[in-house]
């Protein structure tokens, strides 16, 4: 709540104070949504998922196909986002149906493989997806409440913030619902949960589909913001790992944690690293042609260190979920 209120305040004061923070915050909100999706799968249900980028890609393409004028549909923003969510949920269901009986680490590898196959399929089915060009240009949303979606970042910020607020409330309610309690039970001990009359596989499937739908919405927002799906290679393993970093930094299973994690990770990757690089270049320590001078070249290292260090010192994240979690011998 506090975080969302802070985000609203930021949106109001950013224009007059010329902070310029609303612009990069749009990316943070998109990845917060991706993180919320992964949090349902990995945080609530305890399934390591290494292919969230695939659902983001599916969402981006579903959104693009429903809005772009080279296709017959040309829906408005909200209906298209609905289609996107359904497409994502369907994809999550299709991936989950045959694979959710697998052990934890095998499931992780299957999701990774799915992420790679999705990229290849999107790249190679160029009759539909336009291959490496991506689908573009997408029309800007025309929504009465938010103002003109032109070059100013503010309407985008408000729109994305509204979607994020909705998603946060949906996640919070889901967590407290019967389904949510079943997710947590399956995470803590699948055997015990099934003894209590919870059927683990349908419960996991629900988590997979819901998480995929949220990731797809994030993809739709991304495509809408850049008016293009971009090339399929954008939705690579790095994005899936970024989502994992967001959830792990914040604290698995903690919704506030996801928001903090998105702020921290995207803040580091998209704001702090470029600032650091330009500062180092001004000081003459490195120059732009040097491998160390490009902020992009540090991302793998940052993500890797985040994962290794967090697993070692704070496996429960910065803002751990309130529920008492089992300390040793997690269900594999």
């Amino acid at each position: 709540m506090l975080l969302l209120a802070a985000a609203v305040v930021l949106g109001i004061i950013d224009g007059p104070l010329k902070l310029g923070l609303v612009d990069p915050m749009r990316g943070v909100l998109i990845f917060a949504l991706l993180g919320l999706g992964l949090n349902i799968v990995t945080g609530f249900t305890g399934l390591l998922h290494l292919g969230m980028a695939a659902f983001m890609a599916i969402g981006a393409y579903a959104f693009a196909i429903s809005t772009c004028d080279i296709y017959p549909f040309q829906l408005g923003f909200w209906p298209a986002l609905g289609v996107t969510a359904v497409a994502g949920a369907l994809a999550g269901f299709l991936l989950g149906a045959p694979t959710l009986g697998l052990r934890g680490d095998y499931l992780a590898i299957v999701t990774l493989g799915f992420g790679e196959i999705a990229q290849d399929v999107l790249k190679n089915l160029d009759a539909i997806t336009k291959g490496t060009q991506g689908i573009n240009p997408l029309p800007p949303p025309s929504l009465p409440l938010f103002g003109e979606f032109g070059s100013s970042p503010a309407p985008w910020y408000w729109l994305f913030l509204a979607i994020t607020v909705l998603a946060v409330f949906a996640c919070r309610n889901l967590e407290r619902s019967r389904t949510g309690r079943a997710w947590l039970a399956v995470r803590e001990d699948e055997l015990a949960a099934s003894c209590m009359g919870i059927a683990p596989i349908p419960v996991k499937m629900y988590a997979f589909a819901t998480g995929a739908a949220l990731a797809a919405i994030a993809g739709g927002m991304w495509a809408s913001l850049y008016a293009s799906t971009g090339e399929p290679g954008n939705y690579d393993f790095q994005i899936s790992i970024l989502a994992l970093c967001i959830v792990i930094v914040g604290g698995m299973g903690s919704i506030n944690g996801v928001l903090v994690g998105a702020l921290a990770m995207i803040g580091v990757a998209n704001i702090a690293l470029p600032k650091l690089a330009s500062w180092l270049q001004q000081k003459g320590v490195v120059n732009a042609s040097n491998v160390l001078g490009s902020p992009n070249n540090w991302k793998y290292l940052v993500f890797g260190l985040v994962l290794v260090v967090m697993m070692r010192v704070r496996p429960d994240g910065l803002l751990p979920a309130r529920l008492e979690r089992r300390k040793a011998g997690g269900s594999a």
Partner: protein
Amino acid sequence: MHILHHLAAAVPLALAASTDAPEAASWVDPLLQQLVTGLSNGMIIALIAIGYTMVYGIIELINFAHGDLCTLGAFLALTIAGALGVEAWGGLGGASGVVILLLASAVFCAGLNWTIDYVVYRPLRNAPKLTLLVSAIGCSFILVNVALFWGGLPMGVFGGGVAAAAPKDFPGLVSDDNLLPAAWHVTFTASDLLVVSVTLPLMVALTVLVRYTKLGKAMRAVAQNPTAASLMGIDVDRVIGSTFLIGGALGGFASVIYALYNNTISFQMGYRTGMDAFTAAVLGGIGSMPGAVVGGLVIGLVRALSDGYLEARWTNSVVFGILILTLVFRPSGLLGAKLRDKV
């Protein structure tokens, strides 16, 4: 891409040969050629797959960083080759250069793999398995970044002005001339010979080590039950460390052979090759060393046939598809023992 590169050189040769002898069935020669290419690549994949399967067998960790470890081995070999000017040695000198590169990379990868285990995995021995897996993914990303920086260092050996992320040419120390008579219509080059003559002895040596030495016995014991093994006086951490050491050394050998065979390396090669090798390990039955070899050969063949008869752009999907189907329908693989969750 690398396989494409090789095929691009090999297939026209085979096709040219078949037009010389029109009486030979035209589809046989390219098929044979793809089998040769596939088996050579498959042996490299198998060598890396052994590294995955050994570690999984002993601590049930999918050692995600293994492929990227091999990348660093290849970069080290390239650096040494450049520094010593191995390319100009020629003849017997060239052969000794290859041996130097192989040994240097093996020692380096073994040491690095052992260090990663000591620093990162050892403190997490009692943590949940997914914690360990996430750490391994983190290590993988760190190694990828190290390789990226390595590729961007202004050492001159990579040829000035080449961007850090660009693939690097690896000197062709081993000739690509055909060793077989032209009438056979199949090319079997010195590189192919190198692959066979390095991988086969290593696999035999490893089998001997695991079957007949005290360390091998200790490794099998720890894989079965670490607690019981430690009660029998086995230093479990030391045995696990040795496993990382041996797996790393094999990866080091594999990385140099890979580089010599494909003549190009890049900072991301470990991800693709590592996934191929991991798929091979799973396909063969993870934890089983003969399985890793069989799986590696199968994946190598599948890649070559998919490149040749399907389309190269679908090859990665085919490999991942095999991975998923194996995990879903036969998680114990072709040769693996039935896996049970330890309760």
